């Protein structure tokens, strides 16, 4: 049965469709290299400084075209970027959001954002149609990107993944694509993007974002930080999940051992 269980995933051809990925038929599709993520595994934790840098990259580069449908308030999350309440308030106020309900005169109006609001769409593209009209293809909303893309793991990795707890395929693919523009003369050729033709021209250049914590301003660092940030954005409850999960599994193992001893003792009478 387990074999069948694994088999289901074997060929989940990478990624797809509405998010803007097309599937590769090419056999020469290399896998993105696995990175060392701080949040991998049972005791994995997000690195707050990295998430903040990643958010900086998102804000200064990605947000020009990509929406991120998360509320500002979540940036305060201590399991996430952990900005202060004042920082988030100030950040939210720099965005103009459309009020849900009309004002006293019956007009829908724009107002400065509050922490409870969701990031508005990019100024240039109020909706997917506008983005598609301008760019040929709508850039995907980034809030779930790290979970909505995947690359084919292949044998035997799809089996070992169960035991190693590897769930960072989307994260690795984001990093791979951002660092995969290897044809200098073709800005839309990507080593790791399925099919190699990507609608998004190389978005990051060394020095494009100025880090303030001394981290070198390289494409590799931007890609890594923004991939980590997007992983948090896609799964903001991951750290709570792993904390509770560790306790749950320890508990179940203890209970199983006790149950086994009880079972042995009770059945001792029956034989």
């Amino acid at each position: 049965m387990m074999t069948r269980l694994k088999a289901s995933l074997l060929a989940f051809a990478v990624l797809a469709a509405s998010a803007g990925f097309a599937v590769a038929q090419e056999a020469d599709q290399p896998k993105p290299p696995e990175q060392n993520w701080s949040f991998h595994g049972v005791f994995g934790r997000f690195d707050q400084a990295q998430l903040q840098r990643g958010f900086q990259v998102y804000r200064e580069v990605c947000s020009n075209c990509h929406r991120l449908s998360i509320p500002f308030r979540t940036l305060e999350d201590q399991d996430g970027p952990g900005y202060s309440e004042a920082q988030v308030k100030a950040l939210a106020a720099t965005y103009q959001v459309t009020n849900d309900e009309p004002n006293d005169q019956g007009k829908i109006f724009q107002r400065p954002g509050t922490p409870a609001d969701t990031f508005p769409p990019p100024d240039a593209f109020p909706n997917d149609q506008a983005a598609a009209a301008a760019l040929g293809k709508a850039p995907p909303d980034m809030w779930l990107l790290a979970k909505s893309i995947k690359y084919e793991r292949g044998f035997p990795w799809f089996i070992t993944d169960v035991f190693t707890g590897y769930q960072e395929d989307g994260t690795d693919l984001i990093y791979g694509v951002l660092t995969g523009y290897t044809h200098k003369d073709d800005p839309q050729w990507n080593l790791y993007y399925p099919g190699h033709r990507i609608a998004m021209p190389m978005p990051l250049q060394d020095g494009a974002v100025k880090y303030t914590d001394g981290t070198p301003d390289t494409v590799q660092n931007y890609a890594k930080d923004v991939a980590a940030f997007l992983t948090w954005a896609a799964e903001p409850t991951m750290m709570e999940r792993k904390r509770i999960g560790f306790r749950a599994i320890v508990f179940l193992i203890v209970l199983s051992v006790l149950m086994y001893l009880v079972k042995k003792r009770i059945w001792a009478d029956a034989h």
Partner: protein
Amino acid sequence: MSHAVAIQPSRRDFLYLATGAVAAVGAASVVWPLVDQMNPDAGTLALSSVEVDLSPIAEGQIVTVKWRGGPVFVRHRTQKEILAAEATPIAELRDPQTDQERVQKPEWLVVVGVCTHLGCVPLGHEGQYEGWKCPCHGSVYDTSGRIRQGPAPLNLAVPEYKFITPTRVKIG
């Protein structure tokens, strides 16, 4: 049917007690998430404050704003209403509170618009005291939102609020 092999284990056995206790702890810790999921979620908690612009509210007017899914009355009280509220002897009140305790600025009364009887929304400028009267069971409130007649036990609640500017108030 009978069972020659039905041997009852000793219930005092430590192992059985320990296993039972661990299982009970597990069951209890599973119950909490199932209960807590019905509490207000993170999105609801984040929306728990609202700002109101006072400048368009004329003297004598009551404006109803939505806060935490329910009504809040913002009342621009007239001089007569303020005097009536302040002059009320505290001994006459079911839920004794002076008017000063209930307002930050005498001309602005901010109260939760939910009758303390069973949760209906009272109607403004009605009842003997021209404060509010509840259409459901006839509770009457004065111009300070205090209960004066009818079945309600308490005054209309005053939410947490503060004046950000002289003409702008933040509730919650």
